[in-house]
């Protein structure tokens, strides 16, 4: 049974006396349009469905592209050492190249790829939010 868990985003209680806000009509209409797009998402309309599919595809493509970077950058090394044994005997400051690449350089490389992913994935999400909340003209 799926547990119903409290949504953190909506935390806090509703204040007893609600303040009314007076806004310009133009902005009110924009809000309503954004609300409609959100509702389309929630109600699984074709528009909402297409939007989510687009987001999932963009995020998956990003993850696969960066996996490819790692697959070539790190995954290529054993193969490279196998076809070019002289590479393994190359030394920098007295240390053999494979030791430096695997023991030291691989970690900053992985962190760099991870950092790029977080930035780009958040940008994809921001694009999606902008798309959903953009007023229709």
């Amino acid at each position, binding site marked *: 049974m799926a547990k119903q*868990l409290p*949504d*953190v985003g909506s935390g806090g209680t509703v204040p007893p006396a609600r303040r009314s806000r007076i806004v310009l009509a133009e902005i009110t209409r924009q809000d309503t349009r954004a609300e409609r797009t959100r509702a389309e998402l929630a109600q699984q309309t074709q528009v909402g469905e297409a939007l989510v599919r687009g987001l*999932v595809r963009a995020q998956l493509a990003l993850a696969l592209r960066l996996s490819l970077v790692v697959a070539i950058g790190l995954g290529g090394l*054993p*193969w490279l050492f*196998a076809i070019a044994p002289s590479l393994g005997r190359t030394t920098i400051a007295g240390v053999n190249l494979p*030791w430096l690449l695997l023991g030291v350089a691989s*970690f900053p490389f992985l962190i760099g790829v991870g950092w790029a992913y977080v930035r780009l994935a958040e940008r994809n999400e921001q694009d999606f939010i902008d798309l959903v909340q953009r007023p229709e003209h």
Partner: protein
Amino acid sequence: MGNDFVVPAIVAVTLVTVGIGFYGLRLARTTSDFLVASRAISPTWNAAAIGGEYLSAASFLGIAGLVLKYGVDVLWYPVGFAAGYLALLLFVAAPLRRSGAFTLPDFCELRLGSRRLRILATAFVIFIGWLYLVPQLQGAGLTLATVAGSPYPLGALLVATVVTANVALGGMRAITFVQAFQYWLKLTALAVPVIFLALQWQADGRPAVTPPDGPTFRAATTVVVEHRATLTLPDGEIREVRPGDELTFAAGDPVPDVSGVATEAGDWLLPSAAGNDDRGLFATYSLILATFLGTMGLPHVLVRFYTNPDGAAARRTTLVVLALVGAFYLLPTLYGVLGRIYTPQLLVSGQTDAVVVLLPGAVLGDGTVGRLLAALVSAGAFAAFLSTSSGLLTSVAGVISTDVLGRGSVRGFRLATVIAGAVPAVLALHVSGLDVSQVVGLAFAVAASSFCPLLVLGIWWRGLTDLGAAAGVLVGGGAAIGAVLVTVLGPPLTGWPATLTTQPAAWTVPLAFTVMVAVSIATRRRAPADVAATMLRLHTPETLRM
């Protein structure tokens, strides 16, 4: 041995662990506090806790021992252990947090709505959890026996008891503080001694790691053999040694060739794939696949993501973990390399896993500094056993309390913890002969061949069905379990059969993915009707929630 600082250091780590546990208990007021830490933990604390939980006996002791024994080829272990977090970040972290699943069985039910798949996932979580717990307890028994001369069962039972009591009484909140503390302790316990070791190496005139005539003993040494091996002495004599045999070497004697150990400078220094060795290359890629993809399927790793407030925080936490874990993995390699110079006797005795705890004494001697640093390293090793066991126990107990006992209450969780802790403790007492790194490798291979395809396809592919998922987990995970049972219990193999069973991931992971996709397509009609709603929940940012 004979170091009077070691036992107090281990006792202090244990007491601090228990102490922080009780401090956490005071803070845990509600069931929600107790089980998921109310999700009020900051990303930095959470990341340190995940790192602390992840760096196990295999990372703290095992990697240095493997580097000492095999050289550059095994550097793929630390690289893979860190890269596993990148795979987790790219494919799993944010969607899994947004799914609201607390455990892997939860995820199965949320995504595919199948009770039977949930039961299968529960069985795999318990199996992988116990498989990973046994070597932690074993490591504790062996370490205490090495540094304090205690009987083997004492260390194993000590860790099992402390961890079970702590998890049962403090829950996840306590564990978060304990784990975060233990990450920093483990980092310090390797980073501080290595500075002294490097300085001493300079002072000794920078002895070569790979002298042209092979490694030599720096001082007169008596070696007590721990594992059966075949030695080739410098004069060409071949000698079989058994546990308990004593060998004496004078200062300057060359280290004999030991069967199964890279004694030749070239074998140790250069990648083994140099040449036409297809099996070496296959084994390397298999190891890469198992470690890169296995991390996301380890039950104690996933349970942590639930303590992040939202998907974006889960992503950022994972990135911090990657950085913390990466920083740690720079260190064990140095111990393995220095061990080549200062503790070559471990190659002969077979106790290479002890290099981290024995190196400070071997390099710096029996002075106060040497003994203090040896005690610090032993304390770090105990932190590794305690933290990983706590994380595993929390997740196994969580699954047992919700899926086997069928109660989500604090009392049910405590009962489940006792059950989850007792079984591996009994197993650890009876299987002291099992190899630590081999079993940890098995856990990664099984996780990569079962939960990795389930999570990746479940998160990114709408076409996954319950039957497809079950078939993939059974065939892929089953094949991985079978392969390693053959390795551990079966007859000794050579050639390709040996490679395929000791490093199975390169064939079991593709097998699991293929079966999962093929069966899902064949049973297309069983795809859950609410898949669109699930995808919306998994992938859209929380700010859009209504």
